[in-house]
């Protein structure tokens, strides 16, 4: 289907943005700077509106004004106290709101982190051993995990058995970093290919429409 002039105009905006950012490869320049600063403003505006519709409207406006849950006035009042950070004399009052924010966040995080990032990880790492390829892989992974953790153990000098374990640990970590690096590079290259294909398709559509 042939694209409309309107669709081409919108795609043209995307093409200008893409070319503007790519122009940075030739060095810092005004074209890049304009696009970069516009992007800063657009991102800020986008997130403000997204949070306005999803958080402010749903959690403040609907709860207090529509559903009459008056107890939501308290966190709203605390949120407004945060604005006192703009005053040098009264900035300390905003600490009360910050205290609730930090206290609730850490209170939620501590047990959840223990469960999800420590216990569940250990549960996944320690399982019954079977005498096949999967069992051997499991033992290698468990040894790798133990050695990698010993690399982060600083309460004892890394000599003797601990020294050997930490050396094996850094080897495991390097394989992990290498795999992570390889995947990241391929992800970025995939994005690059996608942008180049977009520019090619856009120019084909544009010239096809004109001529």
């Amino acid at each position, binding site marked *: 289907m042939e694209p409309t002039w309107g669709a081409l105009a919108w795609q043209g905006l995307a093409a200008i943005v*893409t070319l503007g950012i790519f122009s940075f490869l030739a060095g810092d320049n005004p074209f890049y700077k304009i696009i970069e600063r516009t992007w800063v403003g657009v991102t800020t505006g986008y997130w403000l509106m997204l949070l306005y519709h999803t*958080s402010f409207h749903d959690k403040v406006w609907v709860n207090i004004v529509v559903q009459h849950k008056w107890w939501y006035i308290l966190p709203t009042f605390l*949120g407004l106290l945060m604005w006192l950070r703009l005053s040098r004399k009264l900035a300390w009052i905003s600490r009360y709101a910050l205290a609730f924010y930090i206290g609730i966040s*850490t209170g*939620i995080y501590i047990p959840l982190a223990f469960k999800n990032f420590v216990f569940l990880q250990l549960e996944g790492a320690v399982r019954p051993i079977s005498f096949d390829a999967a069992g051997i892989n499991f033992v290698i992974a468990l040894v790798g995990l133990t050695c990698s953790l010993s690399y982060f153990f600083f309460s004892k000098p890394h000599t003797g058995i601990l020294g050997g374990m930490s050396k094996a640990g850094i080897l495991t970590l390097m394989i992990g970093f290498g795999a992570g690096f390889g995947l990241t590079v391929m992800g970025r290259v995939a994005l690059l290919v996608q942008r180049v294909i977009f520019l090619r398709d856009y120019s084909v559509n544009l010239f096809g429409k004109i001529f």
Partner: protein
Amino acid sequence: MKRQIPIALVFVAGLLLVIQFFVPHPASEFFFTFATDWIIVIGILALPIGIFSLLRNTYMKGRSDSKERIYSIATFAGFFLMVVSGLPSGSREAGSLHMKFFQNLLVPAQATLFSMLAFYIASAAYRAFRMRTLLAGVLLITAFVVMLRLIPLPEPLSTWNSELVRWILAVPNMAAKRAIIIGVALGAITYSMKILLGIETAYMGRD
């Protein structure tokens, strides 16, 4: 008053939430939902401070430096474009002006910025991947093998490479990632405990 009460509030709020985790009761769940809403409400109402700070700095920069003025105007234009187009209630629906700006301005800008990192990663890799030590060699070979997976290779090389990459990702990579996750979690938990107990108070700033 200025420091002790906030420290006590952090401790009480944090402790209540930690206890709540171990109490499977509807009242406890209601408390958890309410507490989560609290941080969302406080967070969303704190957002204008950050935006005000950004806009003020942009304005001051544009006012003091004539070369910067056009870039400051660009930031303001982008911001107001999204705010004005995003205010109507239907602005989040596909095809709205707000979503068109999102699709054709924000998304391509972000994708291009990330894609450009491919060039910088390549130059950084050139410096980092010179095989000076055994460990650097291990990193280089692993990255090379993983990257080869996405390139069409003749058989049976392609199958061998796929099997090897699958093993690397599922066994040593998994062990390394688990160690990092556990290490980071233990560090973050320790830091959170310090905040809860009032040992760490940097978040309050100075008097």
